[in-house]
């Protein structure tokens, strides 16, 4: 009955109530969104760098190298010579080296030339079919199979570069020979083939593009003027004078992680970058923005607390008579105090529920757009008990503090005076 009374009282001044709930909802929604996105973002970023100590690629921004070759969200820094890369890949310090050659895309999904080690690194099992062996055979990520409705044996053409609307290479068709099982990592959104497939696809117009490297940065093609050697036979990894985009390195001897960045920068035209370091740098950059938004959200929560306080305080003045009546009819002081507290808590709980829902709706929206742009999706149905639990307690705390003075006033109400003035 007290809860019912409180509920009815809340609607005594609907505009005040709506304002308080809207403010609370927005602050809870912002915080929920930030907390979930931050957590899932970090999780995704960390998951993908497991087993990669350093990335070797063309000189340029190290962060760009990591973003492009590990996360596939940025343009590559350029190409490197496979022959010079091989020298380092075969170094005794190196446990595993996975070469990557960025090729084309199919309807926005990247076609990546690599080796079978790449699938192994991401623990991606082949769910259907087999691994790529010959040129133009591809293994597609689980998400791609679903989104492009591709099945084993299907053939498709690639479009040049990153843009889905780029020039279509109709010389060679890719053939799906395998579909990878879902991993929750970048590989789900990639089309994987052999590196020579990428070389062969671009071999016929390599020379003209190599004169304009800015236009084609990172998209591998054949160097030099040898234009027609590739039309009639399949290229292999042993082909001399070829280019790749990057190499993912895992070290046997961890000394290499420390020494290689300097050695390679000084002695070659390449660079190596540490994904862990770059990702940390990225998070600290994001962190400032996220923190600023979080402060804003807490500010809104404080305002909503003040709004609840003002609403309760004002209605209390108008409801003094009613409270006195409840007392005359046997309500105890504590019950009136409870009534005011419950009113405030009801507002907070409603605000929290709406905020949690709205936060998830915004994650759905963010997820849809990041999925489109970066092939990165967020799960709105995850509930972080620790962080969201604390947020719930904080919301309740705001409600209790806001109701404290009005509740005390209700407690101290002088019945005879109030009724005498009625």
């Amino acid at each position, binding site marked *: 009955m007290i809860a019912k009374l409180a509920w009815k009282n809340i609607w005594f001044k609907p505009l005040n109530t709506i304002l308080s709930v809207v403010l609370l909802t927005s602050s809870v929604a912002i915080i929920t969104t930030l907390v979930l996105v931050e957590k899932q973002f970090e999780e995704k970023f960390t998951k993908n760098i497991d087993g990669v100590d350093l990335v070797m690629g063309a000189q340029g921004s190290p962060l760009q190298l990591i973003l492009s070759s590990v996360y596939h969200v940025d343009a590559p820094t350029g190409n490197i010579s496979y022959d010079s890369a091989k020298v380092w890949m075969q170094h005794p310090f190196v446990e595993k080296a996975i070469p990557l050659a960025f090729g084309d895309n199919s309807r926005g999904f990247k076609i990546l030339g690599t080796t079978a080690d790449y699938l192994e690194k991401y623990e991606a099992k082949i769910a259907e079919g087999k691994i790529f062996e010959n040129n133009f055979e591809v293994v597609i990520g689980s998400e791609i199979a679903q989104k492009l409705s591709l099945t084993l044996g299907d053939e498709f053409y690639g479009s040049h570069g990153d843009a889905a609307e780029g020039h279509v290479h109709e010389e060679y068709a890719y053939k799906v020979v395998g579909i990878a099982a879902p991993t929750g990592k970048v590989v789900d959104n990639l089309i994987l083939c052999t590196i020579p497939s990428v070389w062969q696809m671009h071999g016929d117009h390599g020379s003209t593009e190599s004169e304009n490297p800015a236009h084609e940065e990172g998209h591998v093609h054949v160097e030099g003027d040898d234009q027609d050697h590739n039309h009639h036979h399949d290229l292999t990894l042993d082909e001399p004078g070829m280019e790749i985009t990057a190499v993912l390195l895992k070290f046997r001897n961890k000394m290499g992680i420390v020494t290689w960045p300097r050695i390679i920068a000084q002695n070659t035209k390449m660079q190596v970058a540490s994904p862990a370091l770059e990702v940390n740098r990225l998070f600290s950059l994001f962190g400032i923005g996220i923190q600023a938004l979080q402060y804003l959200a807490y500010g809104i929560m404080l305002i909503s607390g003040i709004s609840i306080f003002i609403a309760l305080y004002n209605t209390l003045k108008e409801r003094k008579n009613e409270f006195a009546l409840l007392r005359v*009819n046997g309500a105890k002081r504590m019950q009136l105090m409870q009534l005011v507290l419950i009113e405030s808590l009801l507002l907070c709980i409603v605000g929290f529920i709406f905020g949690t829902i709205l936060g998830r709706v915004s994650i759905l929206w963010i997820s849809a757009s990041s999925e489109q742009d970066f092939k990165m999706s967020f799960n709105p149905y995850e509930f972080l008990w620790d962080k969201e639990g604390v947020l719930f307690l904080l919301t309740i705390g705001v409600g209790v503090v806001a109701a404290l003075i009005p509740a005390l006033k209700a407690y101290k109400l002088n019945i005879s005076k109030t009724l005498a003035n009625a």
Partner: protein
Amino acid sequence: MIKIEKLHKSYPIGKDSLHVLKGIDLHIKEGEFVSIMGSSGSGKSTLLNIVGLLDIHDQGNYFLNGQLIKNMNEKKAAILRNKFLGFVFQSFNLISYKTALENVSLPLYYQGVSRKERQESALNYLEKVGLKDWATHLPSELSGGQKQRVAIARAMASQPKVLLADEPTSSLDDKNAEKVIELLTSLSKEYKAALVIVTHDSRIKEKFINKITLI
């Protein structure tokens, strides 16, 4: 039921104090009807508030149902009010967003009566004041006389031993005032409740034998 001995009450007004009740003695037996009269400011309502445990006296003794009321905490006062006393006010004092039925069942809620019983009982009292058909109406949909009848039903719902009415008829016309007085007296008789009415309404004065006049 109510025994008051040498009761004093003063109110501070600025630096001075206004001595409102000066040594009142009063004895009201079970089922007795008493009207308290007096000019404005003579302390009628103050006396009623003290009897109703809404205010505290300065000096003297007040016994309610044999129990001495002294230094009583609010919690205990609330329990005694709920158990022994029913109130009817001049301005009806119904809760505006509650229906007639909900208003009547309110004291029963604080007595811990179950929802179903509350409803049955409240409906029964509404029937006694002739407003059964108005049970689901809000106070704003009722006339002044009807509102006061709902207030009487509410006061009776907890089956009080004493029914305290503060100017219950002064905002009603003759016909409604007549009906309200009739209800107050008949219900008090039926439930053997003492009836204490503060009034300066001559329509009531005539019907009461026991009169206390405050000067």
